[in-house]
């Protein structure tokens, strides 16, 4: 047995105690889960998507369980930049855990403006640029599925922030490697994927879509093998780090992402199922490294044998 393995990682200059983050939108802004999860134990906390002003989000119903996952169409309800900084940053600054803010805008200008505004905010470790939300009419996924729009947007935001910039790619494209490469060239410091898969449920009695927004995003174990494939492709295409997510419930699920090329991972839906997931995943990764005599996570990243 080797000496204790080091499970710390550094992503885009952000130093994390371990490679397991919580995914945007599944952990609120921090306080919500603080009774149940030790925030100091997280690799990083990624907060729910923030745009410029407070945003209402979609009508209800916003969520429905399906086989192997859930579909959500929250629609990026949020307090806006100032609301977030005032209401939540004092709480988040108490912890020794990097805070990554997931940001979005209705158009390029709003994206730029939001990013710029966070440059002055204290205690923010990085920005996750959500160009892949299936639940908003403008912004979101429209940017993430058009190669040129995605690259332009990332380039523009890059100029407006000195924080590490982590575009979150859309999963529903045939060649995600092209998007990964374009993002890297446009100045991304890391990439994050996958966001939810566009999906829909119809109530056969009323013949109406179950979600008020009609379409939502599928998350949870159902999407895990799709996510592993997309992360594998993206990681091969770039030299910046990739953060893998989608359906992680166990350390094994997380390790697949790491072996496929992810330098860190994020737990989303499983926080709802079992708030103890993140701790279980961290412990499981540590145990795996020990068992396989690996000194650090980096020895495992992208170590897939083909």
């Amino acid at each position, binding site marked *: 047995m080797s000496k204790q393995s080091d499970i710390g990682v550094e992503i885009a200059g952000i130093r994390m105690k371990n490679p397991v983050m919580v995914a945007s939108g599944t952990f609120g802004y921090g306080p919500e889960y603080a009774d149940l999860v030790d925030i100091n134990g997280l690799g990083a906390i990624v907060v729910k998507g923030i745009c410029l002003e407070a945003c209402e989000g979609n009508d209800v119903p916003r969520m429905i369980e399906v086989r192997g996952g*859930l579909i959500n169409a929250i629609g990026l309800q949020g307090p806006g930049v100032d609301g977030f900084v005032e209401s939540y940053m004092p709480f988040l600054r108490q912890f020794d855990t990097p805070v990554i803010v997931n940001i979005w805008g209705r158009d390029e200008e709003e994206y730029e403006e939001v990013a710029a505004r966070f440059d002055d905010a204290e205690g923010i470790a990085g920005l996750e640029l959500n160009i892949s939300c299936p639940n908003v009419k403008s912004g979101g996924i429209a940017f993430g599925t058009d190669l040129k729009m995605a690259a332009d947007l990332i380039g523009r935001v890059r100029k407006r922030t000195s924080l590490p910039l982590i575009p979150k790619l859309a999963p529903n494209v045939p060649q995600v490697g092209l998007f990964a490469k374009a993002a890297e060239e446009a100045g991304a410091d890391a990439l994050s994927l996958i966001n939810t898969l566009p999906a829909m449920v119809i109530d056969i009695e009323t013949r109406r879509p179950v979600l008020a927004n009609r379409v939502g995003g599928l998350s949870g174990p159902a999407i895990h093998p799709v996510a592993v494939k997309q992360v594998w492709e993206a990681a091969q295409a770039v030299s910046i780090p990739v953060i893998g997510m989608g359906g992680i419930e166990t350390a094994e699920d997380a390790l697949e992402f790491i072996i496929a090329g992810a330098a860190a991972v994020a737990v989303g839906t499983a926080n709802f199922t079992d708030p103890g997931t993140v701790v279980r995943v961290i412990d499981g990764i540590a145990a795996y490294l020990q068992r396989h005599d690996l000194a650090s996570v980096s020895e495992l990243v992208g170590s897939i044998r083909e």
Partner: protein
Amino acid sequence: MQIEKATVKTHDLVGGDYRELVLTAPVTAKAAVPGQFVHLRVPRLDGSVLRRPFSIYRARDDRLSILYKTVGRGTRAMETIAVGDTVDMIGPLGNGFPLDAMGENPALVAGGYGVAPLSFLAGEVDVRGTVFIGGATARDILCVGDFESLGWTVRITTEDGSLGEKGLVTAALDAWVATQQGTPPVYYACGPDGMLRAVGQRAVAAGHTAWLSLDKHMGCGVGACLACVQKIRGADGSVAWKRVCKDGPIFEASVIEWDA
């Protein structure tokens, strides 16, 4: 709130299609107040990612129980929970009913499993009042004995007339309100949306206070996912989404902005 691994003490049919699941859950039981709920992970429900919320029916010493009706996949799987099994739950969650605003003339209004939190409430206060229990048939009328043994007056309505008065619970309520001369009633209601709206509208029109326990599909149960929101009017008149799991599930009728 806590995650507690509770042990199943008993699990029995208590009438109609309703089952009571009694758990040893000292931490949650101790902290619970009427109107709060637990978010339960259904055992052996592979492929299911969401917990299921249930009002706390009883909480005394180290025991906590819920009363549930089988309506879908999750509750169907719950039927197979056996004595001795471990059930993972998060609780107690939500705000609970405000008990100090109860006044001298409380009216509890329950539909279906809505009796559960109201029965808990009935035993936690000193005042006694009237309980209206409505359901489709006699099989949906539960907990009558709970209330009566505590000294509450029970009025039953069923839509098919198989027990109590025939008709909707609101008809019985209207008749009763017309007879109330003294202290204005304060309502505590839990049940289907339609019933809650009807009770709320009456209360608002009459200038009475009504505490309604809302029932929304939930994700996290702790305020993080924003799935369970309801439009609520603030003190300044502005309307904003509030989280039923965290800011509720109990809201005063006059601030609820119902969908059209």
